[in-house]
């Protein structure tokens, strides 16, 4: 096992990986950009290295800086987390050249899978079903594209061969829109990934996004940990994930797992990976892509299979053999994850960021909150808007949803807007409750309910504000000889009172009827 692991990431995933390392007695090295100096993953690490300014292109995405940090701190392995360099084969090569173990798949498997076109071909050979489509089209070859499009049929998707995270994808409803979509997709792909190659794929409508977690060791053993349902998406970004899926029977689960294992074996995969499938209305599934890393939504699998996936990643990366499979792998209970994003669901999900003044994480049975938040965190503007993940486990789906509702109400994040009201509305929706969802369901069929006009919370807010302003005013010195100073200037002295209370050994401020 490794002695010291550098975690080449930030936010909740850096903490997640760090926690397992610390439990296993492995020392951790954190890397951080300047605005992340105060982040929890920095504070809790054994060593920390600053790798540059805020923009990730100058810090978390710079291979040389990460490898140098690993070398100078004597790390013997690097865990990439998700995003950033996690699926960059050049990073894997650089680690290898420096004699540092990369905790993830080999570069060769990454290259084979990272290009969506070569991945499709691999899967076809391995007998894994793929969506009907056309590979390897240059973004300006409209003639070939038009011919292939007629064969595939509409609607279809134009995708960037090197794409990911929903970028470079366009839906084309009719032939006239094909050229525009190719130009847009090609340009986006060229700027995001430096490669304008595209491919066409039939748009399987009303399909579910079902993915299988797999884990492979370096000795050819591959194990699949059932499926996750990730159909609740907006702009191709997942918002809620669950395990298992209401749409998957034990028989289908077995076929999905077999396909995932075949996909892993087709390219000499090792370590954790996710094989994504589309599951159509008739129950047919098609290979979508392999995410060659640990995923955001891995905790739901951990909870229903009682496994620490990060621990297994460390074990297989250090050469250990995966424990053998015993019988059909059925999930235990039900787990659901909500991504808690800093955005306002009442204002078209506009990003909301700034100072998080107060956080109270939900606790209690079956409740897990993986988050980078703490009181006083100033959320940096350079990274994505995910603040944390609320994950619950219960015996069945109905109980898990009830637990989720309770936990969402228990979560307090003051200072920024979050999508918690969206999650609460979602889990009250009849279609969601019945599991009648597909990847376009949220955008096509779900409407965020408006804020209630008569909201009793408003009354509470008014009362609290009135009491607060009274308190703030009374904190000003009584003999204030400055009548011209406004109350609100004097309010600046409120903190003085707080300190006075603390210095006096009091436990706070209390007035009321309770004690009389």
């Amino acid at each position, binding site marked *: 096992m490794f002695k010291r692991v550098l975690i080449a990431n930030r936010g909740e995933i850096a903490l997640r990986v760090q926690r397992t390392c610390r439990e296993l007695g492995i020392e951790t090295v954190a890397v951080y950009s300047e605005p992340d100096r105060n982040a929890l993953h920095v504070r809790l690490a054994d060593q920390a290295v600053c790798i540059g300014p805020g923009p990730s292109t100058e810090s978390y995405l710079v291979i040389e800086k990460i490898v140098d940090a690993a070398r100078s701190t004597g790390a013997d392995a690097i865990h990439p987390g998700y995003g950033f360099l996690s699926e960059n084969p050049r990073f894997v090569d650089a680690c290898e050249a420096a004699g540092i173990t990369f905790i993830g798949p080999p570069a060769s498997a990454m290259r084979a899978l990272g290009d969506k076109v070569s991945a499709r071909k691999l899967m076809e050979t391995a007998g894994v079903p793929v969506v009907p489509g056309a590979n390897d089209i240059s973004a300006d070859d409209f003639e070939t594209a038009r011919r292939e499009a007629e064969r595939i049929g509409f609607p279809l998707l134009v995708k960037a061969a090197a794409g990911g995270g929903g970028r470079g994808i366009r839906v084309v409803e009719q032939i006239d829109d094909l050229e525009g979509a190719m130009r847009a997709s090609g340009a986006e792909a060229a700027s995001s990934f430096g490669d304008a190659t595209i491919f066409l794929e039939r748009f399987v409508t009303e399909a579910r996004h079902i993915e299988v977690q797999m884990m492979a060791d370096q000795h050819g053993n591959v194990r699949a940990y059932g499926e996750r349902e990730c159909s609740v998406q907006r702009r191709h970004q997942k918002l809620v994930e669950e395990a298992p899926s209401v749409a998957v029977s034990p028989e289908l689960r077995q076929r999905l797992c077999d396909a995932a294992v075949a996909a892993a074996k087709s390219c000499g995969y090792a370590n954790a990976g996710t094989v994504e499938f589309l599951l159509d209305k008739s129950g047919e599934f098609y290979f979508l892509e392999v995410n060659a890393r640990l995923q955001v939504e891995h905790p739901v699998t951990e909870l229903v299979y009682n496994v620490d996936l990060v621990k297994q990643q460390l074990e297989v990366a250090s050469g250990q053999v995966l424990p053998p499979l015993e019988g059909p792998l059925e999930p235990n209970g039900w787990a659901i994850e909500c991504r808690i994003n800093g955005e306002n669901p009442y204002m078209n999900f506009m*990003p*909301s960021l700034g100072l998080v003044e107060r956080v109270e994480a939900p606790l209690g049975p079956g409740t897990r909150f993986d988050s980078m938040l703490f009181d006083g965190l100033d959320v940096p*503007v350079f990274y994505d*808007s995910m603040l944390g993940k609320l994950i619950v486990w219960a015996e069945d789906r109905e109980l898990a949803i009830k637990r989720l509702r309770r936990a969402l109400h228990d979560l307090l994040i003051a200072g920024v807007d979050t999508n918690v009201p969206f999650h609460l509305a979602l889990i009250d929706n009849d279609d969601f409750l019945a599991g009648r969802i597909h990847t376009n369901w949220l955008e096509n069929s779900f409407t965020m309910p408006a804020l209630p006009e008569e909201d009793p919370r408003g009354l509470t807010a*008014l*009362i609290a504000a009135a009491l607060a302003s009274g308190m*703030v005013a009374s904190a000003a010195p009584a003999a204030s000889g400055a009548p011209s100073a406004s109350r609100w200037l004097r309010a600046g002295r409120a903190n003085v009172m707080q300190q006075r209370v603390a210095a006096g050994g009091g436990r706070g401020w209390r007035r009321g009827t309770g004690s009389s």
Partner: protein
Amino acid sequence: MATRHRLLLDGAEHTVVVDEAGDQVSVTVGDGEALAVDVTTSGVPGTFSLVIGGRPVQAYVTRRGQGFEVTVDGRRFLVGPATGGGRQRGAMGAKDRMGEVTAPLAGVVVDVHVAAGDRITAGQTLLVIEAMKMQNEIQAAHDGVVKAVHCEKGGRVEQGALVLEYEADGIEADS
């Protein structure tokens, strides 16, 4: 001793009377009945635990500009003083004053499409602010002519910062 507070919530003015007599606190909101409130808190910013007529509720209160931000069960309220001039600039979805454009959110300016002297039309994109990998187009609310641009490409802006001034057509500048 009773204190009257005139507060602004969601654009509506409310009068809240807090009556403290010894240990008893009673609060009256608008024309409503007086509510016996038991309150305990560590201060501002801080959590206010209120027991109103036997029902406990919690509010997290922090100062925001001249008012307070109060978070109650997942909803954030801005409660400001209802004295004139209490307009919120740009921030929190409030409308900009005529002739001014403020940043609706903090971020990095990734594009500035106009310069001083340019003619602009309502709905036209003036600049783009990127935050959390999302690009937010800031559009003109009125027709007019740009007087000054107060931000530059690549620069960082705070929420509510004045980023652009313009002379709106047919309307005297708000002075």
